[in-house]
């Protein structure tokens, strides 16, 4: 029971990180209808920017953890959003009216570019960061086994929830959110009705990248190490989460992220840690075969 509880806590934390990345996939898919393959690498770039920003802040003497974290969050979100914007502007926008495979292939190319760019400029070694937020609460103690809820985990989950609330408000209540929903329904019609489609799509990428940057910071704080390759696996899992929840659906992305996080954690805890990625990929396959629209997705009707 207590082992289960501990894994539940770990799984929810992991799921929050996946959920934040999954939103980027689901938004872009909903509006542009493409799989933004480079999104996982945007997450990785966000983690690197956060790491470097933090080291810089320490170097100039800002060592108070809450202030430093807040500044890192701002810097990482802003700069990663710039990456998201640039990727869309450079690699996807020229292909908006091209044949359907072109953006996907361009995205794969962009993913390779980002991965190798970070490897070239920052080196291939793993980058460790000493734990910034320590401590936590002991929820339960039985014998030698204790159920821990660390402060990092609280921070991850709380930040995710706050961001989700802000984001849902943005989509539901603001002008931009309305434009986004209009574009999601019908790109051509939205542009006829005066929605600036290009700008809306750009903002979608910017928001997705900013959320991925937050996920990158979480990953950095939670695991303490990053390398240039974390984007691929995290990206695929987050995409799985988006598909599982129903691609195009925002609550679905969060739910999917949570489920993938839980499944992965429990799989490693009770079965085998070597095959945890196999488990995540298998779930993707199984979901797509038996539930192609995901849990909260709408079925798509193919018309002639």
């Amino acid at each position, binding site marked *: 029971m207590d082992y289960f509880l501990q894994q539940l806590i770990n799984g929810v934390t992991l799921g929050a990180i996946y959920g934040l990345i999954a939103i980027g996939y689901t938004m872009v898919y909903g509006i542009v209808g493409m799989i933004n393959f480079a999104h996982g690498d945007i997450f990785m770039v966000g983690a690197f920017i956060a790491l470097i920003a933090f080291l810089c802040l320490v170097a100039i003497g800002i060592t108070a953890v809450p202030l430093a974290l807040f500044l890192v969050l701002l810097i990482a979100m802003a700069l990663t959003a710039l990456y998201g914007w*640039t990727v869309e502007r450079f690699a996807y926008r020229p292909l908006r009216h091209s044949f359907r495979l072109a953006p996907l292939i361009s995205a*794969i190319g962009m993913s390779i570019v980002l991965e190798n760019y970070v490897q070239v400029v920052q080196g291939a070694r793993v980058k460790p960061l000493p734990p910034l937020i320590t401590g936590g609460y002991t929820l339960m103690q039985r014998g030698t086994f204790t159920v821990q809820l660390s402060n990092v985990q609280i921070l991850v989950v709380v930040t995710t929830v706050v961001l989700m609330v802000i984001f849902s408000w943005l989509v539901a209540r603001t002008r931009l959110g309305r434009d986004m929903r209009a574009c999601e329904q019908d790109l051509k019609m939205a542009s006829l009705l005066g929605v600036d489609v290009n700008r809306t799509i750009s903002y979608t990428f910017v928001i997705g990248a900013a959320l991925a940057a937050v996920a990158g910071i979480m990953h950095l704080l939670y695991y303490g190490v990053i390398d240039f390759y974390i984007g691929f696996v995290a990206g695929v899992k987050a995409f799985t989460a988006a598909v599982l929840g129903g691609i195009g659906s925002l609550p679905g992305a969060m739910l999917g992220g949570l489920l993938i996080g839980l499944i992965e954690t429990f799989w490693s805890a009770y079965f085998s840690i070597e095959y945890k990625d196999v488990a995540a990929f298998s779930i993707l396959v199984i979901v797509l075969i038996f539930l192609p629209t995901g849990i909260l997705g709408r079925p798509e009707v193919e018309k002639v």
Partner: protein
Amino acid sequence: MSSLSAPSPKPRLDLLAALKRALLSALIAFGLFSLLIGIRTHTGSNGALVISGRPDLLAIMVGLTFVGAFVRELILGERVLEMGAMLPPALRARLQMLPKLAAPAMLAFAIALPILFYHNRYMLDLGIMILTYVMLGWGLNIVVGLAGLLDLGYVAFYAVGAYSYALLAENFGLSFWICLPLAGILASFWGIILGFPVLRLRGDYLAIVTMAFGEIIRLILLNWQSLTHGPDGISGVPRPSFFGLPFSRGDDGFAHTFGLQYSYTHRIVFLYYLILVLALVTNLVSIRLRRLPIGRAWEALREDEIACRSLGINTTNTKLTAFAMGAMFAGFAGSFFATRQGFISPESFTFTESAMVLAIVVLGGMGSQLGVAVAAAAMLGGFEFFREFAQFRMLVFGLAMVLIMIWRPRGLVATRTPSVFLRNRKKVDAELVKEARST
């Protein structure tokens, strides 16, 4: 969209606007590069990270962006780069004749290469590598180009072929010539097993699921230590023999039997011709298959799945045959890879390989046999060219993928010849051919 507004060249040089846009680009570049390039993280002596500034490199990158954006604004303005339109019409007509001559010329060069470069081991190895990718490209072309199914996990079947041969040879001592068909059969079998559940998915989803399968197979090869030796891989994979004659120094060896001086090059040349023949078989089979009912069904499926279904084509079986056929050739290529390398490990079958084969097919022009061969030669040749900058070459590769998609989304060979025609064969512009449709 851009093609509509394209033929409106700027009336005058708008220096100020160009400068403004270039400054903006430089500002964005500064934002992008400031932390990632401007500051380098090192692992310090006590294991913690230390940082050091790289303002010079940052300045160079931002400066380059500025100059590049400025020049681009001045030359192009709002116009879109149109390579073809810049050539005089006479030259363009000549260029259109080129593909007809290119195929025989390339084939002749491929056959003559071991004679021309007999003493150049490097060229022979490069030729073998290029031909392996040409074969993989042609195999994937059946799946992507003809049937229109986007497969991002093609390397899985390559891995199945390679491991089939290596494991069969290791455990049962079977020879290459027995294992080659077996590897193909096993790979196509896997193609059917994996294809069966997923082929009712739409384009993008299919792509992701095949990618997931590719990763699953790699992870299993990596973790099933007792069978595959995990990350250590399988070494000592037996070399091929010349129809039973080994390439060895002994009395029963190839050299002795034919009364030749023993040379290591014999095997390399033999491997070269082996992969050339395998690749040509792939090419021949796919060209012939296009004319068969099944091939026409593939192309029809690519164009319109619903129409196919209403005309009574069994779409599942049609897709499965395409999948299995592509997988079979990957299996052949895989067992060739195993016997050439003599050593295989899961390292060789990463997603990057799949992306590369797909890139070859797409950049060459999906469905075009010649384009795939040209793209494979250009890409791997380019890789060799960048060998000295090994760390940059994947960067350049990714960038090339993006740029070619922007400039020539239909690939290098952007026309298709129809498989079925009335009286004379007319070229079809690739714009009219659907590829990997999903909606």
